[in-house]
């Protein structure tokens, strides 16, 4: 019997991924541990290693296929004594999984009655007669996996789309006045179950049901989704506003979906407020020049390190968090986690999106260590080679748009982090010093705070500690 290679879950939360590349072709011998394919997840590209040995008999999911659900067979390995040519998918005679797999959800609304994704999967071979749930719950809006080509956005407004939820989940949601549509289901095939609704209620991530559903007398329990307004416009509605042919449709990749989901969640659920401050940079620039000039050079004349202003910003924020420990915290729904170390995320713009890799224990690291680590993380971020654990965690982050000449801006907090620091450009400014005009170098920084974790005065204290370090940078060296 051929061995199914299934779409692996590369992280506990991964529900689907894009099959970026096959590194083995049909007919190749595969040994345990061989890298056979590359999978693009939410944000990273990761390698898939073979567990079984044999001959790669058939590739079921073509290179470049998007949104392949975890556990869907992606290839077959011919077992011992089997003729790879005779191997076909699947062994039990059930309909073969389509190589092109489920349609990318964003293309679905326009396409005529796409094959419901859930059915595609459940119709698979015996490999799926499994206690493991064939989870379809997508990373993005929950209904991407719902049959009948549930559309983008929240789908709640697409009349007639059935929301798969357990009766108990429906009842609890109804009593709490919650709309089920945006809740991501963790049950089989993305079904919304009790714990999802409870989590939504306690986490505040759910939206109240819109007017018609909120009046229980008018909303029959059986079709909670039907009369509701869409919370945001579906693709069809948006497209209707523009003349056909005047735009190009760009499908969403995993990163774009994650950005959309996380930041919508952040702006809708995190009570942001913003604190801005100017920092003088003269001392820092002088020190930086001095340190960089002291770097040893290799035989090509390349210095061993070159500190950027941002490296100082990371270090200063890390030390400031140690000095104001109450601000070094993240929100955890029913409690606050106060961090011992300063783990500082740093936003890295890449083609098609961004990553926020985290410098761990940044308060303990030297500027040169931070600089080297940033260089490595940013490099791998651009190649989408970061491991999920390298861009998760952290109590704060730094977003620096100074290099684009941005004077100041407000960054969106990356939940559950408590703060994020937006850094503007360093520039020469005329200020009044001791009653006389003076020219100084300065930059404006803006701290976005999650008010649940960091109150105004606390945020101000953190920013003040940061300013002291930036303006007296020798403090970072000792």
């Amino acid at each position, binding site marked *: 019997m051929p061995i199914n290679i299934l779409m692996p879950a590369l992280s506990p939360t991964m529900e689907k991924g894009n099959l970026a590349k096959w590194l083995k072709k049909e007919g190749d011998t595969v040994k345990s541990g061989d890298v056979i394919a590359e999978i693009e997840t939410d944000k990273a590209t990761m390698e898939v290693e073979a567990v079984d040995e044999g001959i790669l008999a058939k590739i079921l999911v073509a290179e470049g296929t998007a949104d392949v659900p975890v556990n869907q067979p992606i290839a077959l390995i011919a077992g011992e004594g089997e003729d790879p040519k005779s191997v076909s998918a699947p062994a039990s005679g059930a309909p073969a999984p389509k190589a092109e797999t489920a349609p990318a959800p964003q293309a679905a609304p326009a396409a005529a009655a796409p094959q419901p994704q859930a059915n595609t999967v459940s119709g698979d071979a015996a490999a799926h007669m499994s206690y*493991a749930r064939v989870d379809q719950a997508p990373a993005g809006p929950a209904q991407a996996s719902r049959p009948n080509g549930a559309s983008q956005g929240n789908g709640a407004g697409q009349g007639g789309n059935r929301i798969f939820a357990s009766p108990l989940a429906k009842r609890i949601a109804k009593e709490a006045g919650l709309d089920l549509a945006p809740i991501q289901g963790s049950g089989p095939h993305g079904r919304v179950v009790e714990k999802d609704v409870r989590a939504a209620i306690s986490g505040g991530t759910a939206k109240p049901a819109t007017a018609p559903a909120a009046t229980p007398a008018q909303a029959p329990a059986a079709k909670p989704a039907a009369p509701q307004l869409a919370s945001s416009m579906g693709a069809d509605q948006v497209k209707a506003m523009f003349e056909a042919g005047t735009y190009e449709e760009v499908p969403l990749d995993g990163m774009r979906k994650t950005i959309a989901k996380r930041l919508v969640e952040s702006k809708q659920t995190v009570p942001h407020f913003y604190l801005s401050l100017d920092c003088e940079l003269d001392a820092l620039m002088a020190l930086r020049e001095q340190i960089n000039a002291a770097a040893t050079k290799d035989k090509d004349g390349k210095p061993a390190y070159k500190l950027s202003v941002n490296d100082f910003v990371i270090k200063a924020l890390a030390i400031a968090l140690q000095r104001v420990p109450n601000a070094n915290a993240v929100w955890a729904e029913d409690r606050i986690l106060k961090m011992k170390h300063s783990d500082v995320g740093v936003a890295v713009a890449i083609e098609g999106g961004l990553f926020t890799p985290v410098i761990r224990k940044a308060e303990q690291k030297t500027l040169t260590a931070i600089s080297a680590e940033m260089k490595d993380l940013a490099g791998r971020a651009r190649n989408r080679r970061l491991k999920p654990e390298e861009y998760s965690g952290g109590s704060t982050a730094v977003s620096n748009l100074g290099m684009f000449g941005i004077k100041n801006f407000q960054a969106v907090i990356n939940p559950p982090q408590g703060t994020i620091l937006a850094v503007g450009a360093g520039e020469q400014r005329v200020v009044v010093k001791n009653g006389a005009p003076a020219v100084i170098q300065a930059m404006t920084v803006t701290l976005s705070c999650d008010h649940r974790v960091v109150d105004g005065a606390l945020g101000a204290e953190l920013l003040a500690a940061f300013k002291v370090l930036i303006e007296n940078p020798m403090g970072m060296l000792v």
Partner: protein
Amino acid sequence: MTGESMANQYDIIVIGGGPGGYVAAIRAAQLGFKTAVVEREHLGGICLNWGCIPTKALLRSAEIYHYMQHAKDYGLSAENIGFDAGAVVQRSRGVSGRLNGGVGMLLKKNKVDVIWGEASISKPGEVVVTATKKPAMQPQAPAPKGILEPGTYQAKHIIVATGARPRVLPGIEPDGKLIWTYFEAMVPQAMPKSLLVMGSGAIGIEFASFYRTMGAEVTVVEVMPQILPVEDAEIAGLARKRFEKQGIKIITGAKVTKVEKGGNTVTATIDDGKGIQTITAERMISAVGVVGNIENLGLEKLGVKIERGTIVTDGLGRTNIPGIYAIGDVAGPPMLAHKAEHEGVICVETIKGLHTHAMDKGMIPGCTYCNPQIASVGLTEAKAKEQGYDIRVGRFPFVGNGKAIALGEPEGLVKTIFDKKTGQLLGAHLIGAEVTELIQGFVIAMNLETTEEELIHAVFPHPTLSETMHESVMDAYGRVIHI
């Protein structure tokens, strides 16, 4: 997979061929793992050879005997009713033997190797199998053909599925002759005239029921205030009444403090807190629970975490030591075959990297095959209240059910417990004919998170005993029809 060196190498070795172990092995083979099971005595484990299955065969004989004694109630005549204890036992052994052979065939069909002997884990990734030292329980089913000999075997993943054995109370050690465990109780040479059963869990009560039906004077001693301590108090109370009506003597809240053995009798001293009494019986069954088989596996040396006599896992079968897993009885309560099987599958699928979920132990049904049968799932009424639920309770007696009357089984009750606030089915507790076959309806309902509404809307076939389930739900919501 080439060369001789691969012969002793496996992806997964399962230690123990009981219901947890052999199911895990088959699932592993289905997922493409090269798999072996190590078994020292009998494929199918206690469940199939000395537990669930052979007792069901014995109880079936008792049930038919009971019907024959009551043939007149059905307009039938049966005279000179009697039994041949040897033949009853032989039938039970035959049932076990047949299923034991079936497990061997299933393993063979799935290309799972069977290594015969006792295993210990010498280091992660290595299992040393030695010849079985434990004397086999007789009669022993023949070992399957094509078994592999003791030796050293390698496996990336080792699953401990060694099951459990009877708990022994100090001073009341079973001797196999006068004081029995379930092993001896299952293969009596002759029916004892009198029997003392210590412990009223499923095992104790099933034997009490069997031997009483076959004519023995039976006394059950339970240390807890109610018999069947894990069951709902109301159901246990009804069961007690029925047992007492059948002539079983029941003493609860009482300890056996001393046992003296005579030539062909046992005299037990029993202290119920109010007074001391002695009971003399021909045989005594010690049925005070089971303990996990954690010894001689090399677990301590490897640092595998053990708590309260069972191996600690993460709910997906993984122990604290990478590459070593545990499932079934040895991985903690409830010590039930169906829990072991389910854990075995979850464990193997976790190894495969499939998206598994730890099972919800609050939804594992329990069945006791005494007369009347008892079956339950979820919270008892007391537990639901203790957990702070505001509850609605539905009850429907078998006497209001047409099929029950037609069967001549009018004694039974279906009790359902709902969360008043959400309509969630929190528990179901049944006593009566065939309720062990009915309970799965409620198990499915709970797993699907149904509320009373779907259960009320569902159409139950008429005439069946299952209608009592429907009516019980309706009773909880004041809509019952037939009482």
